[in-house]
């Protein structure tokens, strides 16, 4: 709107400054920048400044968050990189990330496929599928512990009814706590994936399927030849951002096990949280955060290189 009524003089100068062969007029760019500006401003204010603060903090020796501190250079980084517990936490984060990605993608995909129908079940399911996602994490955490409690939880009772006895809450077992948390977290988040995939499916024009049907393609072929490739851009975005998102989840884990039993569920973000708010080593936590961000950035870069859909550019 504002782009088009720009002052003509300025426009002329800018036009001349640009190569004559440039395809898009600069008013379009101006509009483009204006459209992107709110997002960038928000991110700079809400994420950028605190991030800068974290980087600065990582070169200091602050203990309790917000207490006095002095500059110590790279000391914290040396300690962070040499800390075996940190690398163990990164390893657990890898398991957490892959586990969540696989479980959630599979459930979400299946869900998106089955809730699309026209039957009564399908129509109702499109609403109730969202329920697990709408429950605040605080409640999800407590409810699953309650459901799996050995004394009054319905899950062990149901299991013993079908012959599996002595099942207790998996969250107290070092070997089972991580898989159990992944399942709980997936239960909480899979509707997001389902909604996104379902929305993307609806963007695919019906004519394409019509054509496939005329050609005699069966459902399986239609899915792999048409649905899947067309969904790729959305799946790519979901996979990338979704993974980064789940990597940084603290609340689901912290509320249930606090990283226990015996560190079995201490992922990198939980490790950072503990450092900052339980060990009161804010600067160490900041250094570990920065290292983690760099690792994630490398991972994301790699993922983009490998998985970016061809149609994109």
């Amino acid at each position, binding site marked *: 709107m504002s782009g088009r009524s720009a002052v003509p003089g300025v426009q002329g100068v800018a036009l001349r400054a640009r190569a004559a062969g440039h395809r898009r007029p600069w008013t379009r760019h101006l509009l483009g920048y204006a*459209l992107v500006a709110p997002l960038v401003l928000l991110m700079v204010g809400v994420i950028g400044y605190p991030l800068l603060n*974290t980087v600065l903090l990582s070169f200091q020796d602050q203990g309790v968050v917000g207490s006095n501190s002095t500059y110590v250079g790279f000391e914290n980084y040396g300690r962070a990189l040499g800390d075996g517990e940190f690398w163990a936490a990164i390893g657990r984060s890898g398991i957490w990330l892959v586990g969540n990605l696989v479980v959630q993608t599979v459930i979400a995909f299946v869900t998106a496929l089955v809730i*699309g129908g026209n039957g009564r079940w399908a129509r109702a399911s499109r609403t109730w599928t969202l329920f697990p996602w709408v429950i*605040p994490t*605080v409640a999800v955490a407590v409810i699953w512990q309650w459901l799996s409690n050995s004394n009054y939880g319905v899950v062990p009772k149901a299991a013993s009814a079908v012959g599996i006895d002595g099942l207790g809450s998996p969250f107290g077992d070092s070997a089972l706590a991580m898989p159990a948390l992944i399942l709980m977290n997936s239960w909480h988040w899979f509707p997001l994936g389902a*909604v996104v995939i379902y929305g993307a499916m609806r963007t695919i024009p019906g004519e394409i399927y019509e054509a496939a049907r005329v050609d005699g393609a069966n459902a399986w072929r239609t899915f792999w030849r048409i649905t899947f490739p067309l969904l790729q851009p959305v799946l790519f975005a979901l996979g990338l951002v979704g993974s980064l998102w789940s990597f940084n989840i603290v609340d689901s884990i912290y509320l249930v096990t606090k990283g226990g039993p015996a560190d079995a569920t201490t992922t990198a973000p939980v490790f950072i949280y503990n450092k900052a708010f339980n060990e009161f080593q804010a600067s160490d*936590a900041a250094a570990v955060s920065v290292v983690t961000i760099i690792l994630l950035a490398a991972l994301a870069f790699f993922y983009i290189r490998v998985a970016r859909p061809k149609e994109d550019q």
Partner: protein
Amino acid sequence: MTTALRWHRVPRLLAMAALTVMVLGPLYWITMSAFKDREEILRSTPTIFPEHPTLENFRELFTATDYPSYLTNSFIVALLTAFFTMLVSFAAAYGLYRLRIPGGNKVAGLILVAYMIPGTLLLVPLYQVFAKVQLVDTRNALVIVNVAFTAPFCTWLLRGFFFAIPRDIDEAAAVDGAGPVRMMFRIVLPLLRPGLSTVGVYAFVFSWTEFVFASQLLVSDDLKTLPIGLSAIMGQYTVNWGLLMAGTVCTVIPAIVPFLFAGRYFVGGLTAGAVK
């Protein structure tokens, strides 16, 4: 022929059954438990249906807690978050992926950085930012934070949806003499409706369940949102399970209301969609 067809449907039916049990099973249990008294809810042999159904938990929820106030706050924050997220992310995605501004790729990359940061350490500096602009303890602060965290993801999501819209439409419209603004609202926006409703739902739910920022940035009791109220029920040292279940039910049900109203855009309106 008919048997073949039926066999074909088995995986689908199995998936439907599994999904139903997985989602509705726990929810059934939560709901039933909300109607049990304090003794029955802890019984070692659980009852499938409450023996003495009671409304006591709900009565306590409405009298002892500020539930109506939590609900109002949650709705205001969530609706505003959804609206502004749609606005901001649609605008940004249009600029980045349709107008293709120079440097757009860098911006898109930067957006990703937002999700690489372990949020823990952002809390304290963020509070300071809001304190400086006098926004601590306001709903607006929550809306701003929520949008700042949802909009980048939503911009990325919309990217996929933009690519699904054939580019020829633009060219055709350009030939017809439509300017970029008109093109944005008249042609692209309607086609993006599934994407935008997805974004809206996402932002709404994000805000509805958001706990950490809300509990940091809000101080006054009369501004608190549902997740804060819910976590307050699980106090230190002791848990009133029935009250917690009632609270959960009353957190989930209202969140569904907007979906029912927006159903036309979100889950209904399948006529143009893929699956018939």
